[in-house]
């Protein structure tokens, strides 16, 4: 587990540096997904399997898919086809793929090992997290739901004008 901790830390830092320094947005997003997966394995080695699952499902899954959707929406038109061809070249995905392969190897090693022995700490499973979340932190859950509702309303309002031809630059808003 010590080796896994250091290896995932190295992968996370390397992938994040590569994500920040890429010119193309899609390259950066691929490296960022590798970085998030590495951080998820860090969570697992730190005895937080529930947070690791959430990191993969919500961060690397939902939020990054949102980014990819918007990047693809912005590239409608003539350039879209050439861009599509450029994205399918191996040069684009070979780096993130190799980093993700290291993480896959770590996951297989952990699964093959059988017993979950975290890195010098105790495991805090989903039961404990759920009991605490809906016990002393129930008010925080309600506040988080309000934040998400505000985000939903704000994104809908802004996106509605973007899609249905709202006021142009220089015109008075309706």
């Amino acid at each position, binding site marked *: 587990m010590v080796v896994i901790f250091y290896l995932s830390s190295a992968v996370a830092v390397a992938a994040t540096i590569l994500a920040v320094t890429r010119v193309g947005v899609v390259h950066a997003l691929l490296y960022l997904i590798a970085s998030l997966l590495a951080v998820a394995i860090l969570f697992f080695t730190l005895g937080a399997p529930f*947070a690791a699952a959430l990191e993969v499902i919500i961060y690397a899954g939902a939020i990054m898919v949102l980014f990819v959707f918007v990047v693809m929406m912005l590239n409608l038109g003539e350039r879209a086809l050439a861009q599509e061809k450029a994205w399918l070249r191996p040069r684009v995905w070979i780096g993130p793929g190799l980093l993700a392969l290291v993480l896959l190897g770590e996951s297989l090693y952990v699964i093959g090992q059988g017993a979950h022995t975290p890195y010098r700490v105790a495991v805090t499973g989903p039961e404990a997290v759920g009991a605490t979340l809906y016990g002393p932190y129930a008010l925080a859950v309600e506040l988080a739901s309000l934040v*998400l509702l505000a985000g939903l309303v704000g994104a809908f309002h802004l996106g509605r004008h973007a899609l249905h031809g709202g006021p142009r630059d220089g015109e008075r808003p309706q």
Partner: protein
Amino acid sequence: MASVLSEGLAVSALLFAIGLVGLLARRNVIMVLVAIEIMLNAAGLAFIVAGARWGQADGQIMFILILALAAAEVSVGLALVLQMDRRHATLDVDALSDLKG
């Protein structure tokens, strides 16, 4: 036990610093959002490390709240990116200087 805390917090601080450099250096608005995501994720890692150090669930709770915040922030931010592309036909944050005095 103390080494878990120091090593994990070092990784977290490193990721946060990389995100901060990206936020300051990049001018593409989507890359700025990506850098903010990196920094939020690093903060979440710090909470998880602290929770692991004390063996409590509170660190994971704070991570879940950060996750909800990041989801809300990214949805509004990307809607603003769509508006920016439609109105100004650019993703350069320096192009939005209408409020400059």
